[in-house]
């Protein structure tokens, strides 16, 4: 069964900490994505990558960065966590735009 695995289901961090969210996929997909999901706001794209070492900003990239050193791994970095970054973070991968996404189970991040 194909999978997207996010390293943590729940995470609590302090304001100002640097936070790493890891995502690994085993489907050899070219494209990987990071979304955040908030009540009333839906899914919002933070960053995506269509190839190793390639990245593009999504709709809300401020306060985040990403790293894709290997095809299967896409990391989201919160440079200095703030309380307004408390959210559900979802990683997804896709072979191309026709097939839809495979999502991970999500990481619920709380910044205190």
């Amino acid at each position: 069964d194909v999978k997207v695995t996010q390293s943590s289901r729940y995470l609590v961090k302090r304001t100002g900490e640097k936070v790493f969210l890891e995502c690994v996929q085993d489907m050899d997909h070219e494209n990987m994505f990071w979304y955040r999901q908030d009540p009333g706001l839906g899914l919002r794209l933070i960053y995506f990558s269509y190839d190793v070492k390639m990245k593009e900003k999504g709709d809300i990239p401020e306060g985040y960065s990403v790293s894709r050193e290997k095809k299967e791994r896409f990391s989201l970095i919160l440079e200095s966590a703030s309380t307004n970054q408390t959210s559900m973070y979802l990683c997804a991968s896709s072979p191309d735009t026709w097939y839809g996404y495979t999502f991970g189970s999500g990481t619920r991040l709380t910044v205190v």
Partner: protein
Amino acid sequence: TQLLEQSPQFLSIQEGENLTVYCNSSSVFSSLQWYRQEPGEGPVLLVTVVTGGEVKKLKRLTFQFGDARKDSSLHITAAQPGDTGLYLCAGANSGTYKYIFGTGTRLKVLA
């Protein structure tokens, strides 16, 4: 900015009832997906439609893509408690890697 509006936002029905969820936009999409998300989990892809007027069936779920590829519907026949969840539509345009997600319909099926 492309938007996908879903209706209704919330739906609570009894087991065995039928329901339809709508996904509407003023923009044309080259493909559209439907996902279901259960609490605490990521969305799971149900179907992709790519041709205007296309109808796909997945057991008791019927998906339709509008002729103009601007809207879609999801019809559930004889809903069951296992259908409970957040239903999301997402549209994409050819040549882009990004999907635009709808606002979501939260369905609760009561036993």
